[in-house]
Structure formats: C-alpha cells, structure tokens
C-alpha cells in the first residue's frame, strides 16, 4: 500500500483536484452512457410491442 491514511490518499500529494477531476468525470461518463443506451434499447422494445413509448 502506497498510502498511510485516507486523507493522504485523497490529497494525492497536492494534486487531488487534478487527479480526482480526471477520475470523477471519466467515471460519470462511463456510468451515464450505459444507462442512456439501456433506455434507448428499452424504448425500441416498447415501441415494437406497441406500448406507449416514454417520450
């Protein structure tokens, strides 16, 4: 383990804002995209079944 404490880990040797800024945006994009494609797939299936498509 490279870190002695959690606060040291989050500080990232003073580069916390840069490192976490990169990781948070990447994680957000890679969390949102699967949801949007799943919703698109669900809309396509519902439209085919003749159900009222949500939006």
């Amino acid at each position, binding site marked *: *383990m*490279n*870190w002695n404490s959690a606060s040291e*880990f989050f500080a*990232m*040797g*003073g*580069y916390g804002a*840069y*490192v976490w*800024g*990169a*990781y948070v*945006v*990447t994680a957000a*994009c*890679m969390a949102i*995209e*699967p949801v949007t*494609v*799943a919703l*698109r*797939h669900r*809309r*396509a*299936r519902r*439209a*085919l*079944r*003749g159900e009222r498509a949500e939006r």
Partner: protein
Amino acid sequence: MDVVNTRWRFFRYASPAAFYPLAGRLVPWFAAVAAVLALAGLYLGMLRAPTDATQGDAYRIIFIHVPAAWMSMVLYVVMAFWAAIGWAFNARLASVVARAIAPTGAMFTFLALWTGALWGKPTWGTWWVWDARLTSELILLFLYGGYLALVSAIDDVRRADRAGALLAIVGSVNVPIIYFSVIWWNTLHQGASVSVAAAPKMAAIMLQSMLLMTLSFWAYAFAVVFVRARAIALERDNRSAWAAEAVGRARTRTQTQTQARTQTGAGT
C-alpha cells in the same frame, strides 16, 4: 458442401436476427469483465503503485488517460472499417455497428482531452497547447461529431450510412497522424508510453495497471456498443418478423390474427 457450410457460418451473424440475441447474451459478460478489470487496475494504480519521482501523484491520471486515448483511435478505425463494409457490401448490420460505435468513440476522445488537460496543467503548466498531438486528437473529436451530425441530418437511413461511411473513411487519415505526431513533430506531449519494439519505460506495476484499465475500457466499449447496436437494429427493422419475435411479440400477434379471424367469422 464444406465451403457452403463455412460461408453460411461466416455470414450468419451479418443478419440482425442472429446478431440480436447473440449480442444480448454477450453484453453481461463484457460488463462483468469491464468491472472486474477496472477494480484490479484501479487497485494497482491508485493504491499500490508508488508516487512518481518527478511528477508526484499527478501521473496517476495516466491510468485513464492513455486507455481513453487508445480507445478513441481504435474505435475510430473500427467504426470506419464497419462503415466501409456496410457501404461496399450493402451489409446493413455493419452500418448499424458503425453508427453504434460513434458516440462511444466520441466520449473516449473527450475523456482523453479532458484528462490530458488536467494532467497538462500540473506538469506542463498549461491546460492546452496547439501542439500536433493535442490538435490532431481535437480533430478526431470533430470527426466523430461530424459523422454523428451527418448521419442524423439525412432522413434516408441507407443514404445516411453511405455518406457517413465516406466521411469516416476519409477522416481515418487522421488516426496515423495522431499516433505518429509525437515522432514527426517536436511536440510538448511526450512520446509513446508503450512500444512493442522497446523495453517498457515505466515500472511494471504502473504498466500492469494501465493495461488492465485498457482491457477494461475495451470490454466496456463492447458492452455499450452491443446494446446500442441492438437498439438501432430494432428501431430500423421495426416492421420485421425477427424484431417482433425478439421482443416476444410473436405470440401476441398470432393471437390478434386469430381473434380478428374469429371476429370476421362471427360477423358473417
């Protein structure tokens, strides 16, 4: 006989009816692999890998920056390839896959630029420079954007596929420019992190983390692209029998037909 059999197998998954269920079965596996590899890669990169002697902990951005940048280029080449196949052989599913790749490729291009800016500020002292590597990667983002705008602007689906294919093929000249920019020009951006021809320039644990994250991003891209391709295939073939069957409407439709026939019979 053998040849026919092989050909049949080869082209089998070119049919949306065969692709749809296969892709659906593969998606959970790709998603699981992506999650496991990401956890392993982040554990090594964020918790175990030592602090860099010159860059401090800012270097840890590499574990997402390099995989995102690789994916942005690989996905573009794969998109252009399937777009070309879809155009040359009039293969509808190939064009669907090309369209399904574009948004994910654009996302990884954005992430490569975003993480690069956040890495550039502490190490170079600037968010952005107009050097060859950064500029050609920005052009890649515009190419993805141009492809997406073009195909959505043309109503005729197959016409849009062909126009998009042309743009994707012409734009693919940019990919080797991005890759070799650090050799061809004197860029602020550093040279290649990993080379097949030379010994790794970084510690083994850092390299392992970066490769795990790259494989994770690959698996993620497969999962997301397959789901999007399934959605597009259903949207396009919404009057076909396979699509109705795929969403489990086949029985309901026969029931409706039987009901209709019974009602007509009762009427006369």
